[in-house]
């Protein structure tokens, strides 16, 4: 095995919000840490988050973490684990205040505190009225947060390996995680990063869909690597379609627009959300709003010549508010929709946005998998946080602003777990088996020698079209079934992708082929898990599980109040129970109920 080897206490893969937050814990604790990122850290997709990060600071309206917990559990359609949710909402104030201390340029209230705005699904007093919980830096919160976290890591002297792409996770026969094999994009050099602890913070994979708010780089690398290494993926049937992607372009328009007073209108100019969510209206949770929009469009009340979108209207807001609180949205709207939202409404359509599922973890950020009868046994040496992980705090539907909170809380907690495990002497540097890098090297060798076959862009397009058609906002029994057959065919065709470019230097063709392998794992997990779940819950709504008195909203708690686990080796599924008990005695369990807004 002629391959370079580097040894660290810990290796973190991904330098978005979660990876950078974890890195801070490790750097400040003095662990020898390598942070790998396939893009320069501030290019990570956290940068694109707009509307804010949730914390019950109560700066503008009364608020309480109990209310935030209730909203999150309800938003998750009761699929979220209540221990992890309690952990997250109770940590919210701490991690947001820390960020402010790191220098994050939050907007301010007149009294100088962090500015907070209303957001979808967030309420006061257990669903009674909207609450101002989203801590925001204009509509550039993710950008401000990612830069602040990167800057703090510069101060902490974190060691980055920038523009290195991790290829595969290393495990030994006992299941211990030993690090990763990674490729330096500039030189084509392949190296083993051998470590006591491996933290995945590789983000989401919304690019498996044809129309997505996600960056090109969101290709589910961590999920692909985990799946190939025998780690199951949890709840991958649950995908969030953000209500307001710019029609045609897919670029995100934050829910903060509706938080500031924006209204969705159909062809008749009607504020249709009043019919679907009489209480929270346009600020109902995202799955509800997206389905309402698609229903309007399907019933012929869409806008434009093809009646294929609806309008997001903020023309009634004062230009000052728009310029001050939503300047980035105005810029996006002018550039990608060709309209100035001060003067005309923005054409929007639900767009694939966020993966609720991921690599299964507990609230400590430890990756867990079934072993010896326990479905949630920690995998030694393996941690994950952020969108690639499933703690599970978002369950079947995530609330806006809970993703930035997730990556702060669980990035930090994964980092703290690594440090604690390291200090307790629980993290051995297990020897590398002789064949440790073979899987990654074989993938590279195949691409090198493959002379014909399927173009990467063709296979990717087939995957994206399949996901879009068969696993969209509304799901249909027959389409799902056909979707499984189809995605397995696409997966088969991905085994013989070929690239013309054989250069060692910055070979983006090779990178895209390797990324496609990861996307295919995610797409299979999503389609197969979705086909199998015979109920409607949160973002997963199917025609054969309608709203009935026995199963309100089509949700079937008796048979389906459980997490899906998909295994990549043979596509089989297992299930594990949802944690319905908060972690402390300070909170009552949020009892199952029908979800209405």
């Amino acid at each position, binding site marked *: 095995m002629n391959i370079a080897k580097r040894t660290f206490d810990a290796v973190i893969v991904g330098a978005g919000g979660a990876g950078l937050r974890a890195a801070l814990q490790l750097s400040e604790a003095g662990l020898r840490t390598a942070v790998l990122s396939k893009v320069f850290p501030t290019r990570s997709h956290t940068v694109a988050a707009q509307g804010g990060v949730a914390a019950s600071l109560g700066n503008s309206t009364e608020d309480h973490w109990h209310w935030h917990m209730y909203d999150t559990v309800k938003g998750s359609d009761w699929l979220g684990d209540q221990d992890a949710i309690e952990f997250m909402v109770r940590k919210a104030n701490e991690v947001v205040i820390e960020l402010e201390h790191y*220098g994050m340029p939050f907007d*301010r209230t007149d009294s100088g505190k962090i500015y907070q705005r209303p957001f979808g699904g967030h309420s006061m007093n257990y669903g009674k009225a909207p609450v101002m919980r989203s801590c925001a830096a204009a509509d550039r919160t993710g950008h401000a947060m990612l830069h602040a976290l990167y800057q703090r890591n510069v101060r902490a002297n974190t060691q980055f390996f920038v523009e290195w792409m991790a290829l595969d996770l290393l495990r030994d026969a006992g299941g211990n995680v030993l690090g990763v094999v990674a490729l330096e994009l500039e030189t084509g050099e392949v190296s083993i990063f051998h470590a006591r602890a491996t933290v995945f913070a590789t983000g989401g994979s919304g690019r498996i869909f044809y129309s997505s708010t996600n960056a090109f780089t969101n290709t589910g690398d961590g999920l692909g690597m985990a799946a190939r290494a025998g780690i199951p993926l949890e709840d991958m049937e649950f995908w969030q379609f953000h209500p307001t992607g710019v029609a045609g372009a897919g670029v995100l328009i934050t829910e903060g627009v509706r938080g500031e007073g924006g209204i969705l209108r159909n062809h008749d100019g009607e504020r249709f959300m009043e019919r679907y969510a009489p209480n929270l209206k346009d600020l109902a949770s995202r799955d509800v709003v997206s389905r309402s929009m698609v229903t309007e469009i399907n019933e012929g009340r869409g806008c434009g010549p093809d009646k294929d979108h609806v309008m997001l209207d903020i023309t009634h807001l004062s230009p000052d508010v728009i310029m001050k609180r939503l300047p980035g949205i105005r810029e996006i709207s002018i550039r990608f929709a060709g309209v100035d939202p001060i003067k005309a409404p923005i054409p929007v359509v639900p767009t694939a946005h966020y993966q609720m599922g991921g690599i299964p973890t507990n609230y400590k950020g430890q990756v867990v998998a079934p072993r010896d009868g326990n479905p949630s046994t920690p995998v030694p040496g393996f941690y994950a946080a952020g969108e690639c992980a499933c703690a599970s705090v978002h369950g079947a539907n995530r609330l806006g602003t809970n993703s930035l909170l997730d990556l702060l809380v669980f990035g930090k907690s994964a980092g703290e777990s690594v440090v604690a495990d390291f200090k307790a002497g629980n993290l051995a540097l297990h020897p590398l088996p002789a064949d440790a890098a073979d899987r990654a090297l074989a993938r590279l060798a195949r691409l090198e020698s493959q002379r014909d076959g399927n173009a990467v862009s063709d296979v990717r397009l087939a995957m994206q079209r399949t996901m879009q058609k068969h696993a969209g906002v509304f799901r249909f029994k027959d389409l799902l079934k056909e979707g499984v057959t189809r995605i397995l065919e696409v997966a088969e065709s991905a085994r013989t992708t070929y690239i013309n470019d054989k250069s060692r230097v910055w070979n*983006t063709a090779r990178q895209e082929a390797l990324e496609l392998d990861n996307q295919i794992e995610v797409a299979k997990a999503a389609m197969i898990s979705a086909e199998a779940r015979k109920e409607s819950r949160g973002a997963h709504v199917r025609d054969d599980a309608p709203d009935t008195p026995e199963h309100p909203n089509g949700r079937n708690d008796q048979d389906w109040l459980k997490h899906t686990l998909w295994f990549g080796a043979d596509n089989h599924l297992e299930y594990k129970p949802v944690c319905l008990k908060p972690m402390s005695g300070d909170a009552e369990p949020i009892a199952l109920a029908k979800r209405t807004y």
Partner: protein
Amino acid sequence: MSKRTVKFKIYRYDPDKDAAPYMQDISVELDPADKKLLDAMVRLKAKDDSLSFRRSCREGVCGSDAININGKNGLACLTDVDDLKQPVVLRPLPGLPVIRDLIVDMTQFFKQYHSIKPYLINDDPPPERERLQSPEEREELNGLYECILCACCSTACPSFWWNPDKFVGPSGLLNAYRFIADTRDQAVNERLDNLEDPYRLFRCHTIMSCVDVCPKSLNPTRAIGKIKDLMVRRAV
């Protein structure tokens, strides 16, 4: 917009096989939905997978796809392809070493960014809650914190071309002022000392190319002017 064919002239160089850089003539048919230059580049790449460039968010916030477009630096994802004169000439950002095709080595750029200590310095024990800042004080950071580190400005600056190792450059200086202007930061003097040098700050000759090219409509020249003012005020 309907289907149409767009002609390109693209700087190509793969050190693994090319003895020298060359300009490639290539054209591509665009779909009606392809509006931005980046859409066209993705189509070009499907045609010739060896064409190499960075890209990520495709909405102008990550700063990956800065290149030189018909002689002017900009982001491919924010540039309307139909507004460009053909053949559209694409080159890597000027003034930085080329790694391959449109990908430049940004080490020097980030070195300058890191040299200004781009992080809040405040050694007081952190309070239990947020440090307070009035909306007016916070407003001072507008036009500064939005920098996406794309390097359009610094690589459009003749002073940076001549002295990339000594002159901080417009992006780095804009970021330096972002911390100087932050009421929570306690290191104004240290930051000014760090720039008190014939090159680091004073190589800016207000040519204003930076302002002209910034895809986020920021104004590094104004930020640099404010730092110079503080220097002068400190001296008297």
